[in-house]
């Protein structure tokens, strides 16, 4: 069981409650596909990912980015039960999607950067640490059912 301080709980709830999933999701996923181009290997049927502009304008990327954020929301709403929350998705990513779990960290880092850019000074070192702790737990849960 993960132990959350009051500050960490409040920080995570606050960040996600103020987030526009349809902006942040697409921004994070497209950033990941641009900064770590090898992650494009999982999106062969997404059409034009040829350059940064194409990726940022790609509607399938945008849609999927939003889907991912909604998936994260489940963890936000179940912070005391994140492992169980993502058990099914972990199996999906392992058995059906065959995604290398290292990629979860890459996307998580990109999401951190997007949130940082939005919040500016408000994204203090302590807020960053809380956010990264949450994302680390999610990432670990998503990798847990791999075999």
């Amino acid at each position, binding site marked *: 069981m993960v132990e959350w301080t009051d500050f960490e709980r409040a920080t995570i709830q606050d960040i996600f409650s103020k987030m526009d999933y349809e902006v942040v999701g697409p921004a994070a996923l497209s950033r990941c596909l641009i900064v770590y181009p090898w992650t494009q290997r999982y999106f062969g049927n997404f059409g034009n990912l040829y350059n*940064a502009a194409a*990726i940022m304008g790609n509607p399938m990327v945008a849609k999927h980015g939003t889907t991912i954020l909604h998936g994260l929301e489940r963890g936000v709403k179940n912070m005391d039960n994140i492992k169980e929350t993502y058990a099914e998705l972990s199996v999906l990513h392992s058995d059906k999607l065959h995604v290398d779990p290292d990629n979860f960290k890459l996307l998580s*880092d990109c999401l951190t950067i997007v949130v940082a*850019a*939005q919040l*500016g000074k408000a*994204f203090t*070192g302590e807020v*960053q*640490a809380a956010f990264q702790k949450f994302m680390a737990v999610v990432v670990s849960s998503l990798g847990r059912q791999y075999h």
Partner: protein
Amino acid sequence: MLSTKQKELIAEIWGGLTPVAEDIGADALLRMFASYPGTKTYFSHLDISPRSAHLLSHGKKIVLAIAEGAKDISQLTVTLAPLQTLHAYQLRIDPTNFKLFSHCMLVTLACHMGDDFTPVAHAAMDKYLSAFAAVLAEKYR
């Protein structure tokens, strides 16, 4: 490696940051200490509390070195030679920590530059900091 465009972009960004080297460097260090407490073990001899003189001067040193390297990235091994020796034989910081610091530097840049820290700039910066860290660790063994 880095394209010409990427090198120009990086030189431009770091050129603009040298006037606030202290603030940028100290911010990145503080983030690293908060998220990765193990990194504090390398600073037991300094006062690394926020806005402390040690933290600011150390942050400034790091940012100025990164900015200096950015002026001519193809000459990174030459520019960093003295720092390579320092890190290999005296500081002996485990190179995993370079990754942690680089990540926190990217976060600092994102907070500082907002939308100007575009995915393209982010990609170039990540590549540059990785190259910088690799060169820094070259004399370790």
